[in-house]
């Protein structure tokens, strides 16, 4: 295994992210487990300024929904963007430094919460926008392949999210507006768009299939890019956000059905054309697609006016963003296993041990997703019912009713996240084992300029 301190090309830099992703995945799952433990066993565990539920929830959000997504974006940006454009990456050294700075700042943001870091993050994401724009404009191929389109869209949405999150808080509704839009942009736009970018690559190149329809892929790309950023406002239905914004969000969320159908049909038709040599990869892609489709369907279904008051401001919203997060994690894991032979010249042997880790992650992520959906629905329902009983928020019977409904599921979250953590460790071992001692194979040819 050779890792160069200063990589000379996209392939060498991709190697770094191939190793970094499983490490950050372990970190993410470990903090998730700790956070849940501090909720379930709040009365048993020792508390200090770091090890308490509030702080761990904040750290988990930074690691899972920022750092891990940042590493995924970096891998896709470096490996797929240039290939999609048929040329070596323009200004590669600058891109390398920008991505390094981006990940460094995301890591620093976990430790220090200071406005200067968010300023630098905005600047560095702007740099990424600039580099990707130059690359797209300087493409060598006649078309921009779908994966590249999605990566560019994701980077642009990330930039808007960083601009929004830097906005000043002047009045009460500002916080709701910022958290609604930035969460919508990162968790419900950047993550699903990155997921689609990887899926389009894997379902054609890795499965040896021909894309069923370019038109459908365009419908899904432009549809999701336009609609997804608006879909989170609806969960603030009844709050001090402008009513028109909540209503627009409801209608645009319902419109998601069109790009979703285009995407699913394209995937099904394309994957049926696979060469039959990568059945394991196909089953993992199918799993992530099912998770993505269910998440988006629930995201659409929650737009109905009689459901919104129950589901808004609950774990249901967390479950939706977790569903997208899980889809991306599964597909990036698959991409990494696909890239190991291409980049390191080593085969991945899918033995029982390796399959256990992969299945464990699939199982734990989907279970965590379902569990949080149940928590969201139950807490929203009991909250409303308790409020009608007139005693909702006092530390007495009102909240006790809610706790009895969600307590078991919250406790289950702890054990599910433990399974996720253990599976992430197994996955890391699989990656390292394959890179260091897998059977030798041919390394992929570099992109020529």
């Amino acid at each position: 295994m050779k890792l160069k301190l200063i990589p000379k090309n996209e392939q060498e830099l991709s190697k770094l992210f191939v190793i970094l992703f499983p490490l950050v995945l372990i970190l993410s799952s470990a903090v998730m487990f700790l956070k849940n433990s501090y909720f379930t066993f709040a009365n048993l565990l020792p508390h200090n300024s770091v090890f308490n539920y509030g702080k761990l929830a904040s750290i988990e959000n930074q690691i899972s929904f920022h750092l891990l997504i940042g590493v995924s974006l970096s891998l896709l940006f470096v490996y797929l963007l240039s290939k999609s454009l048929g040329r070596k990456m323009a200004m590669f050294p600058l891109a390398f430094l920008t991505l390094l700075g981006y990940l460094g700042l995301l890591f620093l943001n976990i430790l220090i919460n200071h406005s200067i870091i968010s300023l630098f993050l905005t600047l560095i994401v702007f740099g990424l926008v600039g580099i990707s724009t130059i690359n797209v404009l300087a493409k060598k191929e006649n078309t921009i392949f779908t994966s590249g389109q999605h990566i560019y869209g994701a980077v642009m949405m990330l930039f808007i999210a960083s601009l929004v999150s830097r906005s000043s808080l002047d009045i009460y509704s500002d916080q709701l507006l910022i958290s609604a839009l930035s969460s919508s942009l990162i968790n419900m736009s950047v993550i699903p768009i990155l997921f689609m970018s990887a899926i389009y690559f894997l379902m054609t190149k890795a499965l040896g299939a021909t894309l069923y329809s370019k038109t459908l892929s365009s419908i899904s790309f432009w549809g999701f890019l336009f609609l997804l950023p608006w879909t989170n406002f609806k969960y603030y239905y009844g709050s001090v956000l402008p009513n028109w914004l909540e209503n627009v969000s409801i209608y645009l969320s319902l419109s998601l059905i069109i790009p979703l159908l285009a995407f699913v049909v394209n995937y099904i038709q394309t994957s049926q054309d696979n060469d039959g040599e990568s059945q394991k990869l196909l089953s993992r892609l199918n799993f992530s697609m099912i998770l993505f489709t269910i998440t988006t369907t629930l995201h659409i279904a929650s737009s109905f006016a009689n459901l919104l008051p129950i589901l808004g401001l609950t774990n249901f919203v967390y479950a939706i963003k977790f569903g997208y997060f899980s889809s991306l994690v599964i597909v990036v894991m698959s991409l990494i296993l696909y890239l190991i032979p291409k980049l390191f010249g080593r085969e991945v042997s899918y033995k029982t041990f390796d399959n256990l880790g992969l299945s464990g992650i699939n199982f734990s992520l989907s279970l965590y997703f379902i569990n949080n959906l149940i928590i969201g629905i139950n807490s929203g329902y009991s909250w409303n019912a308790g409020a009608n009983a007139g005693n909702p928020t006092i530390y007495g019977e009102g909240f006790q009713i809610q706790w009895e409904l969600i307590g078991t599921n919250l406790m289950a979250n702890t054990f599910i996240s433990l399974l996720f953590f253990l599976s992430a460790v197994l996955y890391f071992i699989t990656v390292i084992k394959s890179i260091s001692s897998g059977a030798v194979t041919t390394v992929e040819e570099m992109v020529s300029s």
Partner: protein
Amino acid sequence: MSDLVNKVAELLNAPVDLVQRSAEARAAASGTTVDAVLSSWAGGESVTSAAPAAEAPKEETPVEEEVVEETPVEEEVVEETPVEEEVVEITGEVVEEEVLQEVEKESSLSFVGGVVAIAIFTFLLGFSIPKNQEIAEVTESLNNSVEVTADVLKGAQVYNELNCQSCHTQNVRALIPDTQNGKVLSNKFANEALIKAVGNLRTAPDLSTNNTREPTNNAQWLERYLKDSTSVNRDIPHPSYTFVSDSDLEYLITYLLSLGENNE
């Protein structure tokens, strides 16, 4: 003919021979192999590399068909004058290749423009306009500022540092079930620390009207509960803030006791 040629031919709705010849011409022009070219047309990867996804150039189909229609004419000429066959064949390939490239051409500028337009649209309509609209509404009202003491502000900062809003909200909505929790907060100017405490996950009780309810309006009860939640309720998990300094805990309690007065 390989399977790949058949796939591409099917995709382009063009004869296999024509696809094969076009690919050969393209391969010769770009200095790569025929298979690489065919793969790029079939699955969406760069001609110059082994790479990524998804471009079935469906748009090419009509033009491809036009070229196909011309082919028999070329063949007729070939049959009549075998000597000229090679010349005609080569010319035909170049034309086909040029047509193919022309059809595939997709403007980067319009793609980038489209993405940037969506981003600007989202930022303006989803953020700038509603934010300014809300501020304008507040500016017009007479009583729109929040007067709080320095201790309350310090307490709000402690509240934010402990991330209490990861479970608690201060966000009563204009919905019948919610309004029974307290009054809907009017949209008013406030300090950043106070605004940050809003929260958006109702896992724990809403604290908007904390000071108007029993027993949370009692400083002693709050202190006991925050230091050791089990002394009040063993079933509901709540962190015990024994690690928070006495002065910070006092600020936090002062802040919690201010909720209800400021929010009405």
